């Protein structure tokens, strides 16, 4: 072991009136000292034989009492100066580390120190992390790291973030982590090719990632610097929004942000060739019906479609340019007695076929903008992924269309990664509202993909940063596969559920009162989850946080981008 770390100041002593155990003990706080929640402490115990054990821990509870008072009302006598009493504070400490691992209880009377600098790094295992990512700050602005090996797939992967919408700032934290990974240079040269795919599910929160946040105050900026990060926007971002309904040129459907946003859709040919039909039936309730059999039969027929130059197809002699034509075509085939068995599969009841057709028609209004071959140069509308970060905006879409987009994008990415067969470069996927895509009950094609990512993505270099309001509503295997668990503000009923069993009781209570910008982060090496704060985003999250357009106008923004080029 290297030399002993410098010692912090003494703050108190282990008490003998509560059990002192190797996992948990109490320390009384000395006069003119204080310990607050999340403080990191260190102490020693000398074993018979002279060997010394270093013990480290984190304060998870602090209490103050009047000693000498027996009744609640004694407090009045004490404050009137009639009854003598002493105020005493004590802190409950959960141990994080024993060095060496001789699990003996800290002895009552032992001096407890605040761990700072190297001692704090030892307490939180930071010093043993070969590469680490800043993941936030303590209350006193000391950096908190997570071990990259548990994020990049070396020893574990994936992050799962739970918390109430609005106050838990889940996606902001996910983006903070992505930013930290990209900026920290932990991957060296290879890291330049790492990418992130972000789904924007709520308002246009993530549509300004490339803009610096003008509301970032200098003290917040300095918090970034104390983590070794530059308070900056994401340098390389591409934005994709669905085409505006009714717009013949398929201009992107955005409200505030226009420059630099492209519109995305898939051609009829891609839809047929790549079996995208299954993602129209991605609702969990669909799986319970007999649709899947019909879906697979129809997909098999669609695969035979011949491609035209503009992405349209010819199937059985019929040219199809738009989605409703395709739907009508499929419906005709399924309703025709002669072709029914061929297209729908044998021994499928008419009821099932009708239900399938009904749902297929139901999808038309929501998906006709996303599956089409009526716009020139469709290649310009494929999500290109040329930049480091790709934002796919789905917040304007209805749920069915959202599922379709998420399903298709992830499916293709998974296929690409699987074919490439290498872990690097890494793909970070940020997806909120996991409960919609991988609900606990039932199964669907999207859930299968997310499960694949969760279970095999680690070796494929696909890192899922999933978020949801309530982890209890998300598929267990997905949550369980996340090496890093993060909890923001929870409602109290949710905080009591088994999914949060990794949090000590006090932290569960605390999760119900946490402010935006505060998270509880659990990582495999550290037995106690840590409460961390992360700085205000250094990229804009709303139009009014971005610099005014005049300043913004750079080479990046082409006012005609998104418009279809004229023939």
């Amino acid at each position, binding site marked *: 072991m290297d030399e002993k770390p410098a010692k912090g100041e003494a703050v108190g002593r282990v008490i003998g009136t509560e059990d002192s155990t190797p996992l948990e003990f109490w320390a009384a706080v000395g006069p003119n000292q204080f310990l607050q929640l999340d403080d990191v402490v260190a102490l020693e115990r000398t074993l018979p034989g002279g060997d010394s054990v270093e013990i480290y821990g984190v304060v998870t509870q602090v209490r103050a009492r009047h000693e*000498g008072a027996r009744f609640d*009302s004694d407090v009045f006598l004490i404050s009137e*100066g009639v*009854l003598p*009493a002493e105020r005493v504070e004590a802190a409950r400490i959960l141990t994080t580390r024993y060095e060496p691992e001789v699990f003996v209880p800290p002895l009552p009377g032992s001096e407890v120190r605040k761990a700072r600098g190297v001692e704090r790094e030892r307490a939180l295992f930071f010093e043993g992390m070969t590469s680490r990512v800043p993941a936030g700050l303590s209350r006193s602005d000391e950096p908190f790291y997570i071990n990259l090996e548990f994020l990049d797939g070396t020893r574990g992967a994936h992050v799962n973030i739970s918390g109430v919408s609005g106050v838990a700032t889940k996606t902001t934290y996910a983006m903070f982590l992505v930013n930290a990974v990209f900026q920290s240079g932990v991957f060296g040269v290879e890291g330049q090719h790492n990418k992130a795919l972000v789904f924007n599910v709520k308002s246009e929160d993530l549509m300004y990632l490339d803009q610096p946040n003008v509301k970032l105050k200098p003290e917040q900026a300095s918090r970034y610097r104390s983590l070794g990060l530059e308070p900056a926007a994401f340098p390389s971002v591409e934005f994709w929004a669905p085409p505006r309904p009714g717009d013949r040129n398929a201009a992107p459907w955005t409200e505030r942000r226009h420059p630099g946003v492209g519109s995305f859709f898939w051609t009829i040919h891609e839809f047929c060739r790549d079996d995208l039909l299954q993602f129209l039936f991605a609702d969990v309730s669909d799986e319970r019906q007999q649709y899947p059999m019909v879906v697979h039969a129809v997909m098999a027929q669609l695969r035979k479609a011949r491609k035209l130059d503009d992405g349209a197809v010819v199937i059985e002699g019929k040219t199809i340019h738009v989605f409703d034509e395709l739907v009508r075509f499929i419906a005709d085939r399924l309703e025709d007695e002669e072709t029914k068995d061929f297209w729908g599969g044998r021994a499928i009841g008419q009821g099932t076929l009708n239900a399938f057709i009904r749902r297929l028609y139901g999808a038309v209004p929501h998906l006709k903008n996303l599956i089409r071959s009526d716009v020139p140069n469709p290649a310009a509308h494929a999500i290109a992924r040329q930049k480091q970060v790709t934002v796919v905006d789905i917040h304007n879409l209805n749920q069915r269309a959202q599922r379709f987009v998420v399903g298709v994008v992830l499916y293709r990415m998974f296929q690409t990664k699987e074919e490439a067969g290498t872990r690097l470069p890494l793909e970070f996927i940020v997806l909120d509202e996991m409960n919609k895509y991988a609900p606990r009950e039932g199964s669907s094609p999207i859930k299968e993909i997310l499960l694949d990512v969760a279970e095999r993505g680690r070796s494929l270099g696909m890192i899922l940063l999933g978020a949801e309001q309530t982890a209890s509503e998300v598929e267990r295997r997905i949550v369980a596969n996340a090496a890093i668990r993060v909890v923001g503000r929870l409602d109290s009923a949710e905080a009591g559920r088994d999914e949060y069993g990794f949090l000590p009781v006090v932290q569960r209570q605390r999760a119900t009162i946490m402010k935006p910008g505060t998270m509880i982060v659990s990582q495999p090496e550290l037995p106690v989850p840590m409460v961390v704060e992360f700085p205000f985003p250094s990229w804009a999250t709303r139009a009014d946080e971005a610099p005014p357009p005049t300043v913004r106008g750079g080479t990046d923004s082409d006012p005609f981008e998104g418009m279809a080029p004229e023939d």
Partner: protein
Amino acid sequence: MARFAVESWSPEYGSPVGEEGQPDLVPAAAVDPSIELPAAEWQPIDCASADIATDVLFVDGVRRIDARLWFDIDGRSRGGIAASYAAGVIRCRDEATIEQEAVGRGIFAMTGAATIDCGKVRYEHHPTATEDMEQLQRGIQSEMGRMEKDLAAKAGPAELLFLDGPLRGGESIPGAVGYIKSHQAGYLPDEAAGVVGQLRPGQRTPLFLIQQSWSRYSWYVRLPIDLPGHPWAGIARCEVAARGTAREAAAVANRASVTLQRFASTPHKDTRAPQNLFPIAGLENHLRHRLGDREFLYRQLRMAALAGEG
């Protein structure tokens, strides 16, 4: 180290041989009730006009017998006790703070016994004249009294100083008001004693002079009490050394009587309410705690005895 053995009976049972300790009874004394008012004209005196003291000291001590011991002195077995005692001074100003405190441990036995060092604790030998239990108890009392006096001297001045228990003549703290909450001796002639029953909270009896080996002025005072019970409910007796004039003593009595009202305890918090004053109860609790764990000390003494055997 002198050879000694620890009595196997638990100390609170006393000892199967020898006498029980006797309480410190004050013998019937010559009492002069006509100091402030003639005995025939006795009536309650209202002290409400006196200033309430805002800086008050209370001095108290606690003692405990940790073990009864048998010393082998000149071939004879002689009884003795190992006792822990503590004293403290509490100042009630804006806050009630324990200003001074000390703990002592002693062996009270005849000459020939010795100090016992148990390693972690040490019992100092204080020789007594006989092995009589009363003598031994008196030995503890006098060590504790000395401790109280020293601590009171260190505590510095205050407007009033109450000592829990009777004063002890020249050994007492100068200027102290003795505060006695139990009444073992009837000092007053019958015609005057009736006035005690008439006292309302905050009132006191006229002064009376008690002349024993030394003289002191004394009076009875009634403390606040919710439910009037028997005539002596909530009555405490105070005394001051008869050094100054009766007029000076009366001024102290007025001030002490009105000040005491504030510190009286309430029945649901103290079984000896109201006489067991809050600060004194708090101090006693604290001091008893400082005496340490008796089981632990008892074991230490037995281990020391065994070590002495070997």
